[in-house]
């Protein structure tokens, strides 16, 4: 492994993309992720890549569609309102089964919202966001290092399944600096893409990349095929971490930066004799429903800790059965403090508060 360096999340995710083999970046600046395109504009040409600041987010995502259709490793990044603008293109990319990586450094919403961290794009990231039946594979890193590791891998994963992958982080992870280590060695190579539209060559048939088929039965066939792929991804790509759940009465469920804050609160609760554990989804699609379901037999309650009014909680409730699920969240760009999460833990374990 290389040396440990201190790096800002936004710069680290950009460098990680290059290490993952990304050679094309199309984007448009928006706080709190503008260091991503800034870094790419400086660095991509050094490795023979192309950086292009598009005229809009809509243009950027369609450039991603084009580059991916031609077989390139390509990325775009934005933050909440900008990601909303990309949604039509993301749906097209998913339907055309094109690989790419999309980074969302989530900020407070709804609307133009604010520029501080939030996790209120969970539904958008995990349940679609654009139109039609489709899924992104969604990684939810909790640190700069984890974001680097996931981003490097994301390009291989996207190629393997011919599916867009999202890195769902937030302004906190984008803006913070932490020590990080990049792997030694060459950048990851692009994979063979016999389906790419790069001219006929020796092939007898044309390659076609499209998201449209006006024959309803044929379009349904495409949906069935994509759905089979999602079933496969659900089995193969699920990632999560559990901590001290074995004897836990209360299990916190949190992802990304919220999981770190939840962990502070959990440590304090353990010190004070409360049996509290943590489940941290590292992918939020696929989601660890079975893990929650198993733990529901043992735990007295779940508590989701998220920077939103309650989105993750819906997935936990799908798996928790009769076990009550509580929610604690701040939103609009406000980051919860470990102290207020701890208060909520105490309240629940002392029989107070209402489950949602």
């Amino acid at each position, binding site marked *: 492994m290389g040396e440990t360096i201190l790096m800002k999340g936004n710069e680290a995710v950009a460098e990680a993309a290059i290490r993952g083999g990304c050679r094309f970046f199309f984007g448009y600046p928006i706080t709190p992720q503008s260091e991503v395109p800034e870094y790419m504009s400086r660095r991509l040409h050094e490795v023979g890549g192309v950086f292009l600041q598009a005229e809009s987010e809509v243009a950027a995502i369609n450039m991603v569609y084009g580059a991916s259709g031609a077989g390139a490793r390509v990325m775009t990044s934005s933050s909440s309102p900008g990601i909303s603008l990309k949604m039509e293109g993301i749906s097209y990319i998913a339907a055309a089964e094109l690989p790419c990586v999309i980074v969302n450094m989530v900020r407070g919403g709804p609307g133009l919202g604010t520029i501080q961290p939030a996790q209120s794009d969970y539904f958008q990231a995990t349940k679609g966001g654009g139109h039609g039946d489709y899924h992104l594979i969604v990684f939810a890193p909790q640190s700069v290092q984890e974001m680097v590791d996931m981003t490097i891998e994301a390009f291989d994963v996207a190629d393997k399944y011919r599916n867009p992958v999202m890195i769902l982080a937030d302004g906190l992870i984008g803006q*913070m600096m932490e020590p990080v280590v990049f792997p030694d060695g060459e950048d990851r190579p692009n994979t063979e893409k016999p389906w790419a539209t790069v001219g006929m060559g020796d092939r007898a048939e044309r390659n076609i990349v499209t998201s449209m088929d006006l024959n309803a039965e044929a379009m349904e066939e495409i949906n069935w095929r994509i759905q089979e792929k999602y079933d496969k991804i659900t089995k193969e790509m699920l990632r999560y971490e559990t901590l001290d759940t074995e004897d836990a009465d209360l299990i916190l469920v949190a992802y990304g930066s919220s999981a770190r804050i939840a962990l502070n609160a959990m440590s304090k609760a353990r010190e004070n004799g409360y049996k509290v554990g943590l489940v941290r989804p590292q992918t939020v699609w696929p989601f660890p429903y079975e893990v929650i379901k198993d733990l529901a037999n043992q735990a007295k309650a779940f508590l989701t800790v998220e920077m939103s009014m309650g989105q993750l909680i819906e997935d936990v409730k799908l798996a928790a059965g009769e076990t009550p699920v509580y929610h604690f969240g701040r939103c609009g760009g406000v980051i919860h*403090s470990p102290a207020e999460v701890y208060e909520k833990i105490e309240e629940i374990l002392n029989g107070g508060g209402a489950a949602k």
Partner: protein
Amino acid sequence: MTHEFIMAGFGGQGVMLMGQLMSYAGMFDGKHVSWMPSYGPEMRGGTANCSVVVSDQPVASPVVTEPTCAVVMNAPSLDKFAPTVVPGGCLLINSSLVTADPGRDDVKVFKVPANEIANELGNSRVANMVMLGAVAKATGAVPMERVEEALAKKMPARHKHLLDTNLEALRRGAACVE
């Protein structure tokens, strides 16, 4: 041991850099570290602050709300952060610009005339390094050699001629908390 800092001042006083150098120094010392800026619609002359954690344990939350040490470079930062320091923690005040009483007798208060010392050194812009020297000494979060190492390694080549002044600033700051 976990040191949780908030470093605050006017934009332009170098509080972000102060925090980054503390993080680098901690990292070079083998500690777990994080640096997190408060970011918002900032403007020149507005207030800025950063959270820094230096710990023997992996850093859980990088957002510091109850600092073990607050560093205030200007008066608005004193009002905002002096009440947040945990009892027994420490509060370092740039006494060149802050004259108000911190109103805390349950924390260790260090008054550092950072701007005056910087001016004595012939460069008003090293006030942040004076304060950083004082912070390292007062908290013992990192050894002074690591701070000096961080400064030497992170200073861009075009500024190398300023290294000695900055190192002297660190030492003068540390001397304030003897």
